[in-house]
């Protein structure tokens, strides 16, 4: 499904952020990516989501090499993903409903069907009553949940979440984690960068740990 082979990533004017990373992810897995601040977690997720390209090595997604993809093919690759960005990337000039419906419009789903799915997604993250509110009027945690609703609304086959519970208190974080696990249960591949909350669900899942750009892997043991 997703395969990284000897991937090195260097940003212009930076050292190597990822060094010689190899990785294989099967469809339907639930994967945690952990590491210090600045270790390269977000960079790894960006490579997988094809929003960055490796400096060397290959990234294969569904057998497509992202470095060799034509620009016109990239959008269709991305529609497989549900992305939750560390900085949310909400659109502050449209309300919650319009934010969440955007991926559906991009996928060509409009009308009542779209509205129904948007409301279902908002309900899942507990924001149905804020449907008409502008994102700027939401609290930090509410914005994070809105970003999650936008990522899951188009029922992607791969969910990539960059610290989706960073701004949430423990009870909300647990709730959100259970949403991700529910997606995982129905066969969605979930890749999540995180630095906490591995305690509850992490037991049977792979944990990729980044230290200074190098990858080590182990089964989760309930880190706190």
């Amino acid at each position, binding site marked *: 499904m997703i395969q990284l082979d000897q991937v090195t990533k*260097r940003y*212009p004017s930076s050292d190597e952020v990822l060094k010689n990373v190899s990785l294989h992810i099967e469809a339907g897995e639930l994967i945690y990516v952990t590491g210090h601040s600045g270790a390269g977690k977000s960079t790894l997720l960006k490579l997988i989501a094809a*929003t*960055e*390209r490796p*400096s060397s090595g290959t990234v294969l997604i569904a057998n497509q090499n992202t470095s060799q993809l034509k*620009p*016109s093919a990239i*959008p*269709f*690759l*991305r*529609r497989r*993903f549900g*992305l939750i*960005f560390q900085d949310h*990337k909400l*659109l*502050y*000039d449209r309300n919650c409903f319009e934010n969440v419906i*955007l*991926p559906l*419009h*991009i*996928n*060509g789903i*409009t*009308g009542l069907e779209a509205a129904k799915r948007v409301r279902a997604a908002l309900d899942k993250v507990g924001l149905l009553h804020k449907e008409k509110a502008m994102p700027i009027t939401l609290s930090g945690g509410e914005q994070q949940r809105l970003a999650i609703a*936008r990522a899951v609304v188009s029922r992607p086959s791969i969910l990539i979440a960059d610290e989706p519970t960073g701004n949430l208190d423990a009870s909300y974080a647990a709730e959100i984690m259970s949403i991700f696990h529910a997606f995982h249960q129905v066969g969605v591949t979930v890749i999540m960068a995180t630095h906490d909350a591995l305690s509850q669900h992490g037991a049977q899942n792979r944990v990729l740990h980044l230290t200074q750009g190098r990858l080590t892997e182990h089964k989760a043991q309930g880190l706190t």
Partner: protein
Amino acid sequence: MMMHWLNHQSQAFQSVLARMRQNIAATLMICLVIGVTMCLPSLFYLGLDGLSKLSNHLHQETEISVFLKLEASKNTVDEIDALLAKNSQIQAYHFVGKDEAWQQLKSKANNTANEVINQLEKNPLPDAFFIQAKSTDPEALEALRSELQNTPGVAQALLNADWAKRLASLLSLSKMLIIFISLLLAIVLLVIIGNTIRMQILTQKEEIEVSYLIGATHRFIRTPFLYAGLLYGLFGALLAILMMTGMVLAFNYAIASLSHLYNSDFQLPLMHSKLYLTLICTAMFIGLAGAYFAVTRTLEKIVKAQTSL
């Protein structure tokens, strides 16, 4: 597939309309600028059009007077008449016989002149043709004059050419000016529409970025901006037409007084459907093109930022 496409179009169009309604003041301002900028060259065009029409009215001023020899016979007069009728450069002419001219002189003459005339024993005036040429170009007129001068039986062909020369110079100066100014305004128009779309894109840069990140195609992103460009062009052109109508009405008053002096009821036309159509099409095209280039450039930047090594 077709349904999907139509859906997307109508949705993009509606979102653009909604956005314009939200920022109604800014939208109006942009349309006003486009309108004014389109209005100016159109006004100049109308003005030039009017000038050249006026110059047709002024034709009669560029007359060539052909005086026949005093001893010219009825035969010679007829011959020259036939010659003039055949000449393709001549628009119109009329004949004034020597007796007619004598009568006119006597009846028109004032006190002083009368005394002179009364002292004359016989009619000293020749037969004459007064000719209006088709061209107002000084050189063509001069050529025609010397051609007439060399016709047998003609004593003298005189060209009232000063006014024609002046008019021609004025017209060529005006044309040069109008071309210059239209060029300048075309630059302004392009920059303004380009800037407007860039500004629009600036306020929606995040939207473009996020849309692209979550899988929108270039076409999906581009469509609403293209509609915005089209609409700005359309509204701008309509505003321009409105302003022009107002100005033409105002000017017709001033021009009427000028036309009066030239004995014509010349007016600038209020409904100039061909000009208006051209205006609307041009504005919409420039709007579309400006939007296309601006959004494509922004998209390319975003794509490039994501494919850098």
